[in-house]
């Protein structure tokens, strides 16, 4: 075999290998693109308007009632943080209780430059780190974009709790499995609103299908300046914050 013959054969071999592989790849890419855009399945999301939150903790209370979250004040699927930025640019973050009045004044009114409440919950990331790290595949994303935990499969290793950049997960003390916000999946699949959205007295939280052409969610996302938490992590959260302060982490 001379050099020319060798080159000819190796080229045709590589071509023969490459063409079907390329076709396969293109087909797969087309399939995933279909999943992202053209699907008629809903792709759920929520907006949170920080300017409207009064820190009444009705959402936290309703969430615990609806989802049977332990009452102790360190297990939450959703919670509200109170931010206080003082005149010397110190940022203080307080957690507020479910039934107590949030008026615990550690900083006097005069020292406050600005202050506000930020409701938080699982961001239902489009690219969820918790799903990536789960060693047994117990955490997964549904076709409508909600991240759920299969509590019969979860081994309670807490890896997902560590991996969540938003601190949205906790280990359920009785079931010993990871637990988190499901967007009230049992409610939304019956056409109801998530419990926190249902009880919010100021319409801080708006829930809906991000693919909908006309809905309260679409309108809020159209009319407000929207930001997500920790965008640099490329998790692509589907909880969108309106009027979010730069100090919120």
């Amino acid at each position, binding site marked *: 075999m001379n050099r020319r013959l060798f080159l000819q054969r190796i080229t045709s071999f590589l071509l023969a290998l490459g063409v079907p592989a390329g076709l396969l790849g293109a087909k797969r890419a087309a399939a995933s693109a279909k999943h992202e855009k053209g699907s008629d399945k809903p792709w759920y999301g929520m907006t949170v308007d920080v300017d409207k939150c009064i*820190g009444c903790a009705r959402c936290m209370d309703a969430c615990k009632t609806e989802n049977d979250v332990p009452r102790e004040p360190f297990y939450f699927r959703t919670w509200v943080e109170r931010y206080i930025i003082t005149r010397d640019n110190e940022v203080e973050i307080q957690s507020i209780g479910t039934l107590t009045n949030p008026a615990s004044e550690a900083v006097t009114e005069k020292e406050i430059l600005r202050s506000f409440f930020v409701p938080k919950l699982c961001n239902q990331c489009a690219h969820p780190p918790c799903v990536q790290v789960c060693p047994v595949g117990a955490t997964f994303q549904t076709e409508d974009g909600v991240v*759920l935990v299969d*509590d019969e499969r979860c081994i309670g290793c807490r890896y997902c709790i560590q991996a969540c950049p938003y601190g949205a997960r906790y280990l359920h003390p009785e079931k010993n499995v990871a637990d988190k916000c499901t967007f009230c999946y049992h409610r939304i699949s019956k056409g109801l609103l998530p419990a926190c959205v249902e009880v919010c007295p100021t319409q801080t939280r708006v829930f809906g299908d991000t693919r909908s052409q006309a809905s309260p969610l679409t309108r809020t996302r159209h009319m407000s300046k929207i930001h997500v938490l920790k965008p640099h992590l490329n998790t692509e959260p589907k909880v969108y914050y309106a009027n979010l302060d730069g100090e919120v982490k």
Partner: protein
Amino acid sequence: MQLKDLFSKLPSKGTRPMDKMPIKLPDALLRLGVVVVALVAAIAIALALLPASLKDRKLQRAVAIERVQATTIMYAGASQCADCHETEVNTKKDGYHRNVSCETCHGPAKDHTENPVDIKPPAPRDRRFCPTCHAYNESRPKGFPQINPITHNPMKACITCHKPHDPKPPTVPGECTACHAGIERTKSVSPHALLECATCHTTPEQHKVTPRNIRPSKPSAREFCAQCHGKESKTEGPPKIDVATHGEKYLCWQCHYPHMPEVHHE
């Protein structure tokens, strides 16, 4: 069982089928073959015996989703309430609490919708309940109706004066404090304590209905403050400046906070 025992049970040399084959495989390869076949068989049997729910990820997920969906619903949703409680819903629909769900105050009521006779959701009449939203808090959005629960009609239940399904708007200008308690508190200890809100602000009636969309006016010219603070002003007491040169292009309230002039920024 040890491997050695396993091989000792194999047929002895001469009777093996391999010996009759034209190509004789080395013994080591043959033993390896037995192990491989055994392994493959074991895996195949295990796969056949395992229930589908342990093998099929799609099935696992579908089962998990069904389990999540089967969770008991506690909150019925506001539209359910309207079916029976027409009067309350009609009272509420034009009032300030129009966007507040029934279950925000009355609590989860799914049970009640299924058994309306025996299970009644509570109606909070306690004075401690309303301040959950309406107690003054610096972090609450500006203009949200807030009171100081300690000084605001002590001991009286909120519902003696306010109808929870249709809380009435305050009357202007005296009761600006109903929503702007923070400003009132600051102003009351400032040099501007004696000025009425209406001295500087005119408030359209609509502000009481849609407080965020229709806003009260603010002084739009420096001459307004100059009525008292200009150096030509005849008033006695207020500090005087030359409006023509002081502060360049800015309006007075763009630097000074009129509800607590100067003192606030020290």
